[in-house]
């Protein structure tokens, strides 16, 4: 069966050159980098080099990089690590309604712990209002945490401006750059951020490793206390092989980003344009320009996302749904809801996220296979009147929930 992967925002294939770089640290060079003896030497050198590679991508110093066990850990460390120790200054945090669960759940937890959180609204295109942001800052504000790019829609937030506002008000600024990294240029100096999160498995690297940039002079309290590792900011024997993978991923991202991004953008545009032309009642979710080059989030009226994805999967096409249906929650996507999209339409939204391996043939396969699927599903949908080619009049008993 054909296998076409349009779900690179969920995770990316591990690039062969990254895998090759990792292998020796899972076989011959298995030593503990803290060891004084021969076994520790190569692993120590390897993580030093990886740190250089990460810092080169972000334009910071190696000392400003903390290796973490995931993007989620990075976000948790950035947020909890800064706000708890600044309670004397204040307990107010500013964020948006469209953050990743690792930021959102952390902030909901902090609300229960007595912090106050301002959840900035987004408009129908997923953008925040900078004036609104600035107005939300109070003398008690200790942290602004806003993602660089949204994982579901690909919308790029104006982190440069946010950074300037934060700086002007002397408030710390953290950005979750897990999706932006490797797809658009990232530079902590331009962004003016104090903390920035990345994760290797969105960059063709392994799962279970990430990095947090922490600007020199910004104190973070560990969430994993332990020994001397990572300058006492994250305990635990270093995950050498994965750190090497992350380093290599950053090196590759820096090297290939321009070429890959422009190629992927052309494919994404072809895909988006093609589906919108071929399938009536299809809408684009998210800002048309300010977004990642690889992501298209499309709403197909009158059909439900999970079913659509299962049908695509039966043809070997991997994509994902705005809704976290598969993940144990039946809520429609909080991102699409925040953008004011109707629940039925947000349930019928699909994210196509492309990557370096995709080709024009992949896109054309989708453009051929998908329209009949949607047509068949619409013919089964009580929300669709096939005869009239429009929304069906329907009323129903509310059940479930």
């Amino acid at each position, binding site marked *: 069966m054909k296998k076409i992967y349009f779900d690179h925002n969920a995770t990316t294939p591990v690039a062969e050159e990254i895998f090759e770089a990792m292998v020796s640290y899972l076989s011959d060079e298995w030593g503990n980098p803290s060891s004084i003896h021969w076994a520790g030497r190569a692993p120590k050198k390897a993580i030093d080099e990886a740190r250089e590679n990460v810092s080169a991508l972000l334009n910071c110093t190696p000392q400003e990089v903390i290796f973490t066990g995931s993007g989620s850990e990075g976000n948790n460390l950035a947020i909890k690590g800064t706000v708890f120790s600044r309670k004397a200054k204040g307990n107010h945090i500013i964020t948006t309604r469209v953050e990743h669960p690792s930021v959102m759940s952390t902030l909901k937890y902090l609300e229960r712990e007595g912090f106050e959180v301002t959840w900035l609204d987004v408009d129908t295109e997923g953008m925040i209002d900078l004036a609104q942001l600035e107005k939300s800052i109070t003398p008690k504000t200790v942290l602004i945490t806003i993602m660089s790019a949204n994982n579901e829609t690909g919308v790029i937030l104006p982190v440069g401006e946010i950074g300037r506002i934060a700086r002007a008000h002397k408030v710390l600024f953290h950005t979750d750059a897990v999706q932006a990294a490797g797809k658009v240029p990232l530079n902590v100096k331009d962004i003016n951020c104090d903390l920035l999160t990345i994760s290797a498995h969105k960059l063709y690297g392994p799962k279970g490793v990430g990095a947090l940039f922490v600007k020199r002079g910004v104190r973070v309290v560990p969430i994993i206390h332990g020994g001397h590792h990572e300058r006492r900011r994250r305990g635990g024997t270093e995950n050498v092989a994965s750190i090497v993978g992350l380093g290599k991923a950053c090196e590759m991202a820096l090297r290939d980003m321009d070429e890959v991004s422009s190629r992927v953008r052309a494919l994404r545009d072809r895909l988006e344009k093609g589906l919108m032309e071929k399938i009536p009642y299809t809408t684009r979710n998210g800002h048309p320009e300010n977004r990642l080059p690889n992501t298209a989030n499309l709403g197909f009226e*009158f*059909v*439900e*996302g*999970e*079913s659509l994805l*299962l*049908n695509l999967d*039966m043809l070997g096409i991997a994509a994902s749904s705005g*809704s976290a*249906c*598969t993940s*144990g*929650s*039946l*809520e*429609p996507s909080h991102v699409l809801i925040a953008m004011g999209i*109707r*629940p*039925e339409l947000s*349930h*019928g939204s699909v994210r196509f996220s492309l990557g370096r391996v995709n080709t024009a043939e992949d896109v054309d396969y989708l453009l051929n296979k998908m329209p009949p699927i949607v047509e068949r599903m619409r*013919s*089964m*949908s*009580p*929300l669709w009147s096939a005869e009239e080619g429009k929304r069906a009049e*329907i*009323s*129903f*008993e*509310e*059940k*479930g*929930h």
Partner: protein
Amino acid sequence: MYSEKVMNHFSNPRNVGEVENANGVGTVGNPQCGDIMKLTIRVEDDIIKDVKFKTFGCGAAIATSSMVTELVKGKSLDEAEKISNATVAEALDGLPPVKMHCSNLAADALHSAIEDYKKNESK
């Protein structure tokens, strides 16, 4: 995630559409959950002669809709009324726990259709 039987009904759903000359219609669901089911039935002599569904919903919603039509076709109203959402889930070799609540409404749609039929009859 889904059992083979669910996938079978999902990819090859039975009795899709709307019964012509239906004398009972049940539509239930919740757009929050993303599942809306419409069941149409043709009852003759207290027997469900024909039944069809239209469903907007996830894999579980479509499979349970399909399954319920198979379960009730040719059954008496009394028998059909005994079918619960749990019966349907069982007939499909189970559903993922998270799907038990929202997406397993096909029996509700059936009962709603039967009720509708009875209301129509009693007019």
